[in-house]
């Protein structure tokens, strides 16, 4: 009897976990932790803090995985509304740091509400499409776009282009996977191309500078171009097999800026070389592949588009970050999943992967 109870408890604890995702997550976390150690060799407390962040992330992931998709659906509207309200609060009473209003003070700590929207927006849109599944019409897509546009504009105005792009992308993936007609997509792309010059004038000076710097980093070697130049030197000098763990000169002589956060890929690439990069990209590819597989096999529209959006968002993080650090995309503040130091991003990520696990492991229950 006791044995049976223990077995049932074990099943209850372990069953919602997807083994493949867990394995890939752990592998990426291991790589991430060693890299953070190298990037913060001067400050060992960071390594410990990041290990703590990862533990919290794993716990969050496990907890979210316990929730079946139907329960997740119930969070969609309140989470979205709460997120938008907080963004509006930020707009009015947010704390200004370096000219950007992104944070909200809770007295004892600060939160960045835009982070919530990374999950809340796809959740909300997936719920919305699910609700109107049988009768999806053009106006539903329009409403969905509006639901996306509100937080997107609020975040872009902070300004936080990086997060805005990620939130926008997450929402767009839901709408795309939800079946937005091709002619609309093509139309939007054409309109976007036409509006580009106008958008250019809307950008902040520093954002424009970043894009220009991408085209010619040497135009500003001590200013905006410095990050890109030093990061590409780090990557390039790493060669095929890297300089060895803790041996990166660009890293340890502090030439790489933001080396434990946004530019941690440069640290990794310098010390592990092309071989290490191949391994890392493969891990991400497997994670994304597993996510897309989960999406394809999910049983409800809600689960499908949500899983698809979360997975493609993860891809976006990786692509934008590595693209930026290796100098083919402009510098935007996007962390590299599981690698960059920082608790908030890890928790958001873990919620996402937890949702993927939940969708995968509760698939059969729904069918039955």
């Amino acid at each position, binding site marked *: 009897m006791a044995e049976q109870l223990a077995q049932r408890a074990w099943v209850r604890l372990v069953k919602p976990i997807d083994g493949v995702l867990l394995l890939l997550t752990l592998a990426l976390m291991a790589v991430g932790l060693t890299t953070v150690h190298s990037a913060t060799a001067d400050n060992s407390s960071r390594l410990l803090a990041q290990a703590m962040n990862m533990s919290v992330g794993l716990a969050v992931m496990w907890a979210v995985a316990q929730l079946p998709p139907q329960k997740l659906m119930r969070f969609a509207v309140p989470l979205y509304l709460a997120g938008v309200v907080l963004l509006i609060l930020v707009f009015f009473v947010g704390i200004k740091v370096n000219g950007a209003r992104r944070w909200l003070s809770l007295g004892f700590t600060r939160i960045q509400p835009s982070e919530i929207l990374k999950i809340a927006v796809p959740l909300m849109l997936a719920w919305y499409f699910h609700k109107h599944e*049988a009768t999806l019409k053009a106006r539903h897509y329009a409403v969905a776009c509006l639901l996306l546009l509100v937080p997107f504009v609020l975040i872009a105005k902070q300004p936080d282009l990086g997060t805005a792009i990620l939130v926008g992308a997450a929402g767009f993936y839901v709408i*795309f*996977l939800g079946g937005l007609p091709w002619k609309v997509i093509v139309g939007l792309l054409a309109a976007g191309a036409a509006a580009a010059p106008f958008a250019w004038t809307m950008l902040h000076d520093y954002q424009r500078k970043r894009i220009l710097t991408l085209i010619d980093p040497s135009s500003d070697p001590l200013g905006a171009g410095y990050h890109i130049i030093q990061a590409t030197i780090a990557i390039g000098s790493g*060669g095929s097999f890297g300089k060895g763990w803790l041996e990166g000169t660009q890293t340890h002589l502090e030439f790489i800026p933001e080396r434990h956060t946004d530019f941690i890929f440069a640290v990794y690439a310098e010390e592990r070389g092309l071989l290490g990069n191949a391994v890392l990209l493969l891990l991400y590819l497997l994670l994304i592949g597993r996510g897309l597989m989960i999406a394809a096999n999910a049983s409800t529209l809600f689960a499908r588009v949500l899983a698809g959006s979360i997975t493609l968002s993860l891809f976006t993080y990786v*692509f934008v970050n590595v693209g930026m650090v290796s100098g083919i995309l402009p510098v935007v503040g996007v962390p590299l999943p599981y690698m960059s130091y920082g608790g908030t991003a890890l928790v958001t990520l873990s919620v996402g992967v937890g949702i993927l696990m939940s969708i995968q492991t509760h698939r059969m229950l729904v069918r039955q």
Partner: protein
Amino acid sequence: MLGRHSRLDAPDRELERFRFRVGLAGFAVFVAFALLAARLFHLQVVQHDYYSTRAEDNRISLVPIVPNRGVILDRQWTVLARNYSAFTLEITPSRVEDLEATIDGLSKVIEVLPKDRKRFRRLLEESKTFESLPIRTRLSEEEVARFAANRYLFPGVEVKARLFRHYPEGAVGAHAIGYISRINKRDLEIIEESEQTNNYKGTDHIGKSGLEQKYEFQLHGETGYEQVEIDAGGRAVRSLSRTPPVPGNNLSLTLDIRLQEIAEKAFGDRRGALVAIEPATGGILALVSTPTFDPNLFVDGIRSDDWDQLNNSPDKPLLNRALNGAYPPGSTFKPFMALAALEIGKRTPGQAISDPGVFNFGGHQFRDDKKGGHGLVDMHKSIVVSCDTYYYLLANDMGIDAIARFMGQIGFGQRTGVDIEGESPGVLPSPEWKKRRFRRPEQQKWFAGETISIGIGQGYNSYTPIQLAQATATIANNGIMYRPHLVKYITDSRTGEKTMIEPEPLRILPWKRQNIEVIKKAMVGVNISGTSARAFAGAGYTSAGKTGTSQVFSLKGAEYKESRVKKELRDHALFIAYAPAEAPTIALAVLVENGGFGAQAAAPIARMVFDYYLLGKLPKGAAREENVEGD
């Protein structure tokens, strides 16, 4: 049935569409990753060598190691310029966020005066990016300890041991030794022209005057290099390799610093110059220009009030009068005139004139300063009593061209080539010179009357004290002329090998020995029974000399009374001499600006110098000679 069918179909079709789009997304992901992989391959394989080099350039910095500057010694190996190591408090501006706050904080631990701040700000404007700059120099042991205890409060601030130049003799001989000071733009141009740019990386001081300037490239040495690994903030992390510097070469001088000191003291607070030369070599024994200055003031940046004082003083202490002051030689010109007359054949020693005390020429009266004249005057007497009329006549007989030719041979009106920069040539008057000097045709003409005053060392005559000393030494040396020089030999810092500055005769003048003897005998007579007899009374050696007084301005026939003339307008006192008369080892020229009579003001200085140099006698209470007849 149909409706049910379509209801079943719709989700299927929808699922199909979804899966197609997921597949499409998967493909896009794959393409994007391929793009990243291609980019990484390009950076890490194709361009690997390029970026490796860039990373090495980032990390490795060549730090120059400044060599020890050579020392300067006098002829007795007394140290005149040396280096000492002292602690400086230095700030690396690139590592400090708020410079003002840091300096304010530092001033609570270590005294930082407003002048230190001023100097630091000036250095900051001139500095290179990663340089550390001194905020305080010459920290005491206690200050070093106090800073060390508070060091953690001041990142980017450190105590460094640096070498400083020091002149132990202070103001003595400053015009000869010179000084070093911080490199400025003009110095940089000189360094570049001399192709020494690499060798001066890291060097921030350079010789600005005197021997420090002339022998800069000997004294400097070769800069060494250290390869160090640096971090992004420019901090040295570790040393990779090191090429040691080669110290500068040492200079050993002909100068005798004790003699120099006695000569300087003999001037008291009077302005003037003295150049003493070893006749047989041209080696300079003393090179005096008073007032002098303390070269140590310049070493770590002269304070502006010190500078103003030196620069604005009416006594012009920075002017090297021995080389750059040009004065009419007055009666000290007479022995050279007499020798010229003998050599050219315009006079014989015994040929005498009757001196009425005045010489009339072209309606102008040229007066002797002894009323009624000296009576019968031959060449010997003309020098001993300094008879002007004799030389008015002589100059008129010789003519300006012959005078200029002869005087040019002994170096008058030409740079001597002494080993100090910026020597003035003076003026050897001649019709050609007048043509060059003046623009208007009526001024360019040479008047015969102008030749008359040339004969007594007045008129356009204008020579530097070193020219006068060189000419005197040439007479003492029987016509063998040497280039005056201060450095005896240079010692190679590596091998210890000495490079002698060989005394090579500049010119051997074909003077007849008996002619020279006439002049020498007369000059000995000057010191025994002539104008400077009193100054040399009781000397334990024989000496030869000639006094001179040169007019600063013309009194237009009125009688000259020293007490009635303003100090700046008083006559300059001159004296040339050598000793011992039979085998001279020292020859000199003394000038006292506005000193009055040469016999009174200048001759006693020569006596003190000779007494010390020949007998080792130190001057006692320097009694001024008074009441001397004539000049």
